[in-house]
């Protein structure tokens, strides 16, 4: 169960409050992969941050008994002076995976990222591709009910991308994804339903193609309005 209850979120600006959502009520359908689409600034990323628990609503709440991941492939949580192993140990401790569980996670990520002895070198010495490998592997090492994906699927080389797709698919056998993407191909490939975010409102489309059509229609309409 994942529900937005009277969700209100605003950001302070020099010209007063800017509301992203005002008393939004919405229930995400159970056991479906959801694609969040909408124009830039519509509030997709804000909603993702709220779902991830990084940001908190100004009023209302997100009601859920599901385990929701951090944004998949997140790299901001890594400390450059520490090694991949140490960074992963940190996340394991936060999620209560200690002892044997931590060893299993480390083994999995080391194997998945496949970066050899760089695994025990400071992250500052990594290429961005290597960081992405570790970050993605770490996200997949924990089982969640919802994985939050914000346009990060296209990382690494072709072989790694294939591997990521495979492991994500394996995870999605028992879990679901909430995905933000501007690539309609990605949405079509992964999602069962569409949630269109528009002017602080969320509209559910049971048919993915209908949702995409509505989004593209609204995009054209707004373009027409401003010559």
């Amino acid at each position, binding site marked *: 169960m994942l529900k937005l209850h009277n969700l209100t979120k605003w950001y302070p600006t020099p010209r007063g409050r800017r509301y992203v959502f005002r008393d939004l009520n919405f229930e995400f359908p159970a056991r479906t992969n959801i694609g969040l689409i909408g124009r830039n600034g519509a509030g997709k990323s804000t909603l993702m941050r709220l779902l991830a628990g990084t*940001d908190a609503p100004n009023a209302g709440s997100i009601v859920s008994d599901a385990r929701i991941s951090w944004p998949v492939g997140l790299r901001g949580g890594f400390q450059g002076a*520490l090694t991949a192993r140490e960074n992963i140990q940190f996340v394991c401790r936060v*999620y209560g995976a200690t002892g044997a569980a931590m060893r299993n996670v480390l083994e*999995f990520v080391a194997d998945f990222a496949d970066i050899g002895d760089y695994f025990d070198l400071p992250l500052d010495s990594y290429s961005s591709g290597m960081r992405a490998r570790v970050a993605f592997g770490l996200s997949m090492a924990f*089982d969640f009910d919802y994985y939050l994906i914000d346009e990060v699927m296209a990382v690494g080389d072709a072989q790694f991308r294939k591997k990521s797709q495979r492991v994500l698919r394996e995870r999605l056998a028992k879990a679901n994804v909430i995905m933000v993407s501007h690539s309609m191909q990605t949405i079509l490939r992964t999602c069962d339903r569409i949630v269109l975010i528009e002017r602080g409102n969320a509209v559910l489309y049971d048919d993915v193609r209908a949702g995409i059509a509505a989004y593209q229609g609204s995009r054209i309409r707004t373009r027409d309005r401003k010559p």
Partner: protein
Amino acid sequence: MQLQSLPATPRKRSTLRIQRAVLVALVIRELRSRVEGRWLGLLWMLFEPLAHVMVILALFGFRHHATSPNVELPVFLVTGLLPFFVFRNLARRLPAAISSNRGLYAYRQVKPFDALIARAIVEVGLYGAVYATALMLLGWLGYHWLPQAPLELIVVGFLLVTFGVGLGLVFAVAAHNRPRVQTVIGFAFLPLYLLSGVIFPVHTLSPDVRAWLLWNPVLHLIELARTYFIAAYQPLEGINLGYPAAWTLAASALGMSLYRVYRHRLVSVD
């Protein structure tokens, strides 16, 4: 590469367990970044504050007695300097913990408050170790090195730490995304250092000046830290525990209220 071998993420943990897990993780991370993976780093971490104390000892060692012939100068300095450093470092360095752990708030369990507390634990542990080392050095050199009233000293230490954390919390909110405020706070600690009777006793100043200095709660705590340590020490007239305790309470309450009000702004990632 099989997912079956991986642990199941627990569905629900008690708040206390999450809090403990986050603090343990942050403290280990903080220590690791400071030590930087070398034994030398660990040594340096202890040696740096100790070196500071020794430089000041060398600079002011020419004065033969501090307040009275019964009070040995190195003991006078160590028992004032280290408590003051704990307080100052907590108040001055806690705010930076919020921004330096900024990326971690993407994990929903980690909040800026945890980052502050973890840094406070590391600072207190570190200075506790330095204090003990300095005392053992004093003992080895033949000075008086055991506190005369350890329990009272612990109370004073507790007040210093809580006051430091409370002020640190206030500064963390006040200086967040305001680098100039940070600079002003940094400058304010120099006069405080001199006016708290840390390196020279304020007893010799004229009564008018002393009456003004008594408004400074840190002076009270430093004087008390010495009184409970050195048997022969004559504390400044008008020193008491209640006044700094009130400040501590006020600073902690203000800090926590400000944090509560501005907590969403503190996590702002970009």
